């Protein structure tokens, strides 16, 4: 079986993991247009080449990032998300009145 190296648990069978989708930036739902939001929710890059994507190790529920070639099926790199998320993200709470439009 194909083996993926989990940054937390080491090399494991690929059947221990779940693919979690393309890594992409989320537009701000408060300020973006409907079209931008639809593009974020539905559209894909579907790149033929090296992609950056989310994966999860099922038994430990650990999410991480993978660089993989979608033509050759080679896993090039797996790494902890803290490499990308290195600053604190502030989520401002939205009041009920604002959401119930």
């Amino acid at each position, binding site marked *: 079986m194909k083996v993926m190296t989990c940054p937390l648990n080491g090399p494991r069978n690929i059947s221990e993991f779940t693919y979690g989708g393309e890594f992409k930036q989320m537009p701000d739902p408060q300020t973006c247009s409907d079209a931008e939001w*639809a593009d974020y929710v539905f559209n*894909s890059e*579907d790149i033929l080449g090296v992609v950056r994507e989310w994966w999860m190790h099922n038994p430990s529920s650990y999410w991480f990032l993978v660089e993989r070639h*979608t033509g050759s099926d080679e896993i090039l790199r797996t790494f902890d998300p803290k490499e990308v998320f290195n600053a604190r993200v502030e989520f401002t709470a939205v009041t009920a009145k604002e959401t119930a439009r």
Partner: protein
Amino acid sequence: MPFNLLKYGLSSEYPVEVDLPAPKELKSSYDVVIIGGGGHGLATAYYLSKYHGITNIAVLEKGYLGGGNTARNTAVIRSNYLTSEGVRFYAESVRMFEGLSNEFDFNIMYSHRGQLTLAHTDATVRSFRQRAEVNKHFGGRTEMIDRQQIRELVPSLNLDPGHLPVIAGLWHIDGATARHDAVAWGYAKQAAKRGVEIHQLTEVQELVIENGTITAVKTNRGTIKCGCAVQAVAGMSSQLMKKAGIRSPIQTFPLQAMVTQPFKPFLDPLVSSSALHCYVQQTSRGEVVFGGGSDPYPLLNTRSTLDLKESLLAHAIEMFPFLANAKLMRQWAGITDMTPDYSPIMGLSPVNNYYLDAGWGTWGFKATPICGKTMAELVASGGKVPELIRPFGLERFSTFQQVNEMGATAASH
């Protein structure tokens, strides 16, 4: 008599029937360029020439005729979908399939078997009831059946596989199968007879778009001008759409299948279970075909994997235990252009005169005739979208109007 036959065989005037004329040089311009020589592209060319008198058409195929997913699918033909939009569309396709051999004067080995889907949970039974009603309402023939009826239809089926006893079945009387290659060949033969040019080993590499309108395609054999173009490239849909600058929701996943050595006939209906992620059918040659769910992650490569084959076969053997000793003869994969709602993307695109027949994922073989017919109408009318395919427009992903067929599509094709 044998002597006559010998004479005929040795005669220099032996009347060879040419199905496809030898390749010609590409012309510098065509009214319609169809990208992709699979069933869908060829059917579009055929109906354009048959119903609309348009014959200045080039079908461009990068490999060989019908060598894409048309050659790789498991040929399940059915219309028992979940939405009214879906059922109306697929039911028309099933009706068209019935007459194709006559129409082509070429045997597509259409075989009307019926398709049985198994329910192992109450939730599935509820969704089956809905599908049976929707199907009946829109002209299909589908009913719910119980264990006894299932036993009579498929005596060799194990009704108590492991932890998932069968509790009911969705019996789709219209379910059928056909020789998939023959469908492509039949369309090609008849389209070529009417003057359509089919060019194999001709890959479209770039699209020339001027002021938002397609004007030409660049191929490995030179640039060809076109009045309009249709893309029908299945697994390469998202890549080609990118060349046209079109955003799409398609993600490409491999789908694997396999076939055993031939057995004497034991299985008439097509049998499918989404809880077991598996469907099984016997071809007219006696081989048993197994198909299942897609690969677990996106990939644009037709490699196969042992782990998917093992888990699929483990389930197949639970359904038909005596197949445990069967020998596999062939196994393969195709890459499938999956959409988030398991419905296709058909119709207009943001580029003028560039028409889409994409997002056919794991379920597009059964739609080959109706796709060809509706795409031909779309092209011939210069972009008036036929009623039947209006729900499948690309714009549904920006207007939040998906046509959700996930429950009726996954693992049953």
